[in-house]
């Protein structure tokens, strides 16, 4: 299937991402980035895009998009097998943004990979835009399933993992959860089922940014001990610094060697990471930057 904007995408400038896009369109594999500096630079640009698009949208989720940025960059640029020019490529790996409110981060990454033009980003959340407030699979290429209602993504990811296992093409499925999100019981239903069915092609990442809407997770509804919980539910569990590319890439690599059970990477992050005024502030969960905050963020993140 060819997306209408595919040609348009191909006509875009030829920086590294576009080259990868071309490569991806031409071979079955594409070369992953593993260089920390390159990944950091991409993450900086993605953060810059996120702030930009939220500022334009005047609403949206700043904190949880920025805490998840490095995880998404590591996954999409360093790990997953995808063809941005062919979003429904049958051999692709899958990514499900279970914490759907971090849509800006996902959109920024998808745009940079060439799933759709970066110009679209600034129409986030506007009427008629294909970039809905929460991921909508029917509108946005690269979005595998609609999310936004928390707690549902792990079940879907498990279903995809079971499905592709039946197909036997060795694809892997990734899903990103919020730490507040694990308060949803459906997450534990899915955790139990994924272990029961030994779906070892499934990797969950938990964005452990210690905040949810109403405050610190331990004030709102305690979720610790997380490692003990996931291990008791039969998962291979790792912990990393969610802002360290070497740690993230190593963890994703390690998951491949744990067979017979699903893996979860508990990624310790800072909500709002990358812009000092947003960092670890409960207030910036669901508000967009003001003009002043936007200027400040631009100064910190630099230009695109």
């Amino acid at each position, binding site marked *: 299937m060819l997306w209408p904007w595919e040609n348009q995408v191909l006509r875009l400038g030829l920086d590294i991402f576009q080259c990868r896009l071309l490569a991806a369109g031409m071979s079955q594999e594409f070369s992953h980035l593993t260089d920390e500096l390159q990944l950091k630079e991409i993450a900086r640009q993605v953060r810059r895009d996120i702030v930009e698009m939220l500022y334009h949208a005047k609403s949206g989720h700043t904190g949880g998009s920025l805490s998840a940025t490095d995880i998404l960059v590591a996954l999409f640029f360093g790990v997953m097998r995808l063809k941005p020019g062919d979003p429904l490529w049958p051999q692709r790996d*899958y990514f499900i943004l279970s914490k759907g409110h971090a849509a800006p981060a996902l959109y920024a990454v998808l745009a940079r990979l060439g799933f759709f033009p970066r110009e679209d980003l600034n129409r986030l959340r506007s009427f008629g835009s294909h970039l809905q407030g929460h991921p909508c*699979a029917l509108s946005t290429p690269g979005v595998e399933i*609609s999310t936004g209602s928390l707690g*549902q993504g792990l*079940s*879907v990811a498990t279903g995809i993992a*079971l*499905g592709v296992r039946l197909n036997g093409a060795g694809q892997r499925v990734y899903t990103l959860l919020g730490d507040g999100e694990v308060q949803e019981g459906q997450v534990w239903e899915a955790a139990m*089922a994924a272990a029961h069915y030994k779906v070892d092609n499934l990797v969950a990442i938990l964005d452990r940014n210690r905040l949810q809407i109403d405050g610190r997770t331990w004030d709102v509804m305690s979720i610790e001990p997380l490692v003990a919980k996931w291990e008791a539910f039969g998962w291979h569990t790792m912990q990393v610094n969610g802002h360290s590319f070497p740690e993230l890439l190593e963890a994703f690599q390690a998951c491949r060697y744990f067979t017979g059970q699903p893996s979860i990477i508990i990624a310790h992050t800072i909500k709002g990471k990358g812009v000092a005024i947003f960092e670890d502030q409960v207030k910036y969960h669901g508000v967009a930057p003001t003009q002043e905050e936007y200027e400040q963020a631009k100064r910190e993140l630099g230009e695109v």
Partner: protein
Amino acid sequence: MNGAEKQSTRVEYGKILAQLGRENPEIVVLDADLSGSTQTHFFARAFPDRFFNMGIAEQDMMGTAAGLAVAGKIPFASTFAIFATGRAWEQIRQSIAYGDLNVKIVASHGGVTVGEDGGSHQGIEDLALMRVLPNMVVLVPADGVETRAMVRWAAAYRGPVYIRTSRQPFPVLFDNDTYHFILGRGQVLREGQDVTLAGCGLMVHHCLAAADLLAAEGIAARVLNLSCIKPLDWELVVESARLTGALVSAEEHMTIGGLGSAISEVLTEFFPVPLQRIGIRDVFGLSGKAENLLKHFGLNPDDIKKAALKAVGRKKERK
């Protein structure tokens, strides 16, 4: 038509599903620890690798079904109607219907004829819950023949479908060779010009019996099988309203939100005539034998007859 032989819509579902499993390797089946009741056990035994028992976890079952659909499979997910549509409503809404995913939900134990298990287990809101969802097709077969046709159709159709089956067997109504399911189409089972009786599921049979009772009193009832609750055959409803000037709806479901509600929406929108809604009138179910409950809730042919007389009377009043 053959009134003597009885078939269970849930058993026929189970059998045709196993059959379809043979024909199409993309079909996968999920259940939530009720495969013996929903009858997915036939499929489970035949295709253990394509059967996923999710345990007592209806939400996860629906989400997993959505994922299997994303991966290109054709999932059928089954449990009791109350748990399928109630416990997992938001999963069906957000993970399935919102993305228009190719998931089939076939739920057993709709209605009060569930019997002894009582109010907690009688799914009498499922049609309302599924009807409000965009993209969702909502079906209630009236016999085994229609069940098989609908399930086969659903497997070929691309999009979400809800089918309600029943615990109790019904008489066989249709002919296997001539019955053909068409989305959005109802059937006229009997012609008549005085009043229209429109039912689904078991109540289609009760409508036919009521039509006999009415005939004995000189009233000619048109009987419709509106097994396709959504999209509803509104043209047939309007045509019947024009022809007969009064209707009775009959369903093993709340009179709120289900078939009767759908018909009243169509009537007020296109051709307002009197409608009497037979169904559960805003109370929960009870334990008891199916026949006691049908009587208690006023769902028998005699109740339909009385409603029809009332509808006919109202028609005259306003002329």
